[in-house]
């Protein structure tokens, strides 16, 4: 990327809200004319990032450069960027024309030029005959077009769009996606688009920035992100996927669901735990025993419009999702194989829960702000140690009162034969849990850890 191609350069931006880090050291370069999408679940920090770019919020740390100049101190009304708001934020007391002309009038552009530019931009959004209409009388889609017109009539260098299609119905959303893409090509300016809709992101963007918990998870083209997710979060968030625990046996050879497969990844080392992603459309049925890598039994089959979605139980006790154009009856035993190309191997982000801890007493250790009973043989009181707890050893309880710690389930990953849960504790720390029980996102859970499951290390 040539430096002078970069229009927006976000450097080390962090933002804390009431003690919670909503943006954590964000670094991002955006090229001129690019369509960039900030994608992530609600609360991931994407809207905060957009509001910092627009100038409605100031970062606590870091700077934002526009054309190489620091604009961190420039108030919103002096930034050459314009925003399309989620719920349009059209001015109800003004008609369509006055809404679109608002910015130009403030800049004291001559009346005639305003009229010409408003006309032109209304034509661009196919709303030519609506100049005198009251904005409240417009449909959602029409209001959306006016909101876009109101922003682009100012000829901004960058257009910021905050979930602009979220309030529209499905059909309207699809149509507007196409129009937005065409508009982007016609205008040739940079679009920064915020959404939680992965399909929208894949359809529209040149570049997708996947965010979670205030951090950038992955930056890449839609195909990169879809085919080569860097971690379980991205894999799960973008499209459907089977995410499984695996073990890299050696280069180009990986084991998961208790079978070994050839793959195209190397450089992980030998006999290393990894995560494996296989897209449901990449598991193939075969009738040729020579091609068959493993067998499974179909346990459900649902028609999804274009394809069938099937869940199968493998002969080794895992559940996998498969998408195929041909249905297989429930109960059928099938033979399956996966291309080496379609196995995406990811480095494991963590293998166990580890926390800095302190031995407070004989048989007691303190971490996460709580004292736990545990075997402290070999350690003295006051020793600073590391406590680790295996994911499957963390016990989750319905009854919060009996628990040692309390938290909310914030992320759930199905791993083929168990769930991998991220639980956010009241103090903001995360604890990861493997369980066979079904929990829902947002559930309040109690956490108990048995004394023998806490392993201490110097």
């Amino acid at each position, binding site marked *: 990327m040539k430096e002078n191609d970069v229009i927006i350069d976000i450097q080390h931006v962090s933002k804390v809200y009431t003690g919670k880090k909503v943006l954590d050291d964000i670094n991002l370069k955006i090229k001129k004319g690019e369509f960039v999408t900030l994608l992530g679940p609600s609360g991931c920090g994407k809207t905060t990032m957009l509001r910092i770019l627009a100038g409605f919020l100031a970062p606590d740390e870091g700077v934002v450069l526009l054309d190489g100049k620091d604009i961190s101190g420039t108030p919103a*009304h002096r930034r050459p960027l314009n925003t399309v708001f989620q719920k349009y934020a059209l001015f109800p007391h003004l008609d369509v024309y006055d809404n679109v002309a608002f910015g130009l009038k403030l800049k004291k552009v001559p009346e005639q030029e305003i009229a010409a530019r408003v006309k032109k931009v209304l034509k661009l959004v196919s709303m030519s005959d609506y100049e005198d209409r009251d904005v409240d009388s417009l449909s959602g889609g029409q209001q959306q077009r006016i909101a876009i017109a109101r922003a682009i009539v100012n000829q901004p260098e960058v257009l910021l769009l905050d979930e602009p299609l979220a309030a529209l119905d499905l059909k309207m959303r699809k149509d507007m996606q196409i129009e937005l893409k065409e508009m982007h090509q016609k205008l040739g300016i940079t679009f920064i688009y915020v959404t939680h809709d992965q399909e929208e992101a894949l359809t529209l963007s040149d570049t997708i920035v996947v965010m979670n918990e205030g951090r950038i998870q992955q930056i890449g083209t839609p195909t990169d992100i879809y085919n080569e997710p860097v971690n379980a979060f991205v894999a799960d968030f973008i499209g459907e996927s089977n995410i499984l625990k695996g073990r890299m046996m050696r280069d180009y050879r990986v084991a998961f669901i208790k079978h070994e497969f050839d793959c195209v990844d190397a450089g992980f080392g030998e006999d290393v735990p990894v995560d494996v992603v296989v897209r449901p459309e990449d598991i193939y049925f075969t009738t040729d025993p020579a091609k068959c890598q493993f067998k499974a039994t179909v346990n459900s089959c649902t028609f999804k419009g274009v394809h069938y979605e099937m869940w199968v139980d493998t002969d080794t006790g895992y559940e996998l999702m498969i998408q195929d154009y041909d249905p297989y009856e429930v109960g059928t035993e099938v033979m399956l194989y996966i291309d080496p190309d379609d196995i995406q191997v990811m480095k494991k982000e963590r293998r166990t829960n580890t926390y800095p801890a302190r031995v407070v007493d004989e048989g007691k250790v303190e971490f996460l702000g709580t004292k736990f009973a545990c075997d402290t043989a070999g350690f003295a009181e006051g020793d600073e140690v590391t406590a680790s707890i295996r994911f499957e050893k963390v016990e989750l309880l319905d009854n919060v009162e009996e628990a040692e710690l309390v938290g909310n389930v914030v992320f759930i990953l199905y791993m083929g034969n168990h769930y991998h849960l991220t639980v956010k504790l009241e103090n903001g720390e995360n604890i990861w849990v493997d369980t066979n029980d079904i929990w829902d996102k947002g559930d309040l859970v109690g956490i108990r850890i048995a004394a023998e499951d806490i392993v201490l290390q110097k």
Partner: protein
Amino acid sequence: MKAKKAVAQAYLWLILLILYAPIIFIAVFSFTTAKSLGNWTGFTFELYRNLFTGASSDSAALMSALKTTLLIALTASVFSTALGTLAAIGIHNMRGRSKAAIQFVNNIPMLNPDIITGVSLFLLFVFLHFSQGYVTVILAHITFCTPYVVLSVLPKLSQMNPNIYEAALDLGATPSQALWKVLIPELRAGMLSGFILAFTMSLDDFAVTFFTRGAVGLETLSTYIYADSRKGGLTPELKPMMTIIFLAVLVVLLLVNLNNFRKEKKTNR
């Protein structure tokens, strides 16, 4: 059902009759000049004529009290509307403890009885050696009127699209341009009802004015009537004035509610 309705209607009209008896009585006797009460000495507009020409010293004082009342109410409610609208926008954008605190204090003047508001402000002006007169009365009226403006504007703010102000900034408006060109037009309805509330509160006030007016001879309608009653005699011209005020309020309220009535008629059918 019919009998039940008749009883209900009878009850309503009985209460209304009792409620309005004094006003009707005053209105009727505003058209005669009998000195002793309840005496009818023939129909005449004389009291009305006196009131408007200031023929007697009493009627001149009464007219000047009316003017003072209106002047104070107008000034106080204009300031209250400005102060209260700005405050409401601020409070709407505040969070947590400071928001709760300012809303709590905002409620105090509404909950406080007039006499406490009056006494406490009297002590304040004494304490600050602030000589009392028009200025202190208006300041006092702003104190108990502004909370009503704040409470009228706040709900409009929460109904408003939260991004409207930011949209204006985004399109190049400075914060003050955004206030004038977007926020205030959007909040007009709330500001108007706040203004009307403040205006009526100020018109109705007696105790606060009484304690904060000092000794400069400032009289509002309320303090005039109070002084009148202490003297024992009712200024005759008060009768036509009350009649006019009553009719004015009736007409204004009917006009304001005309639309509602029309809507109601439609839905009733």
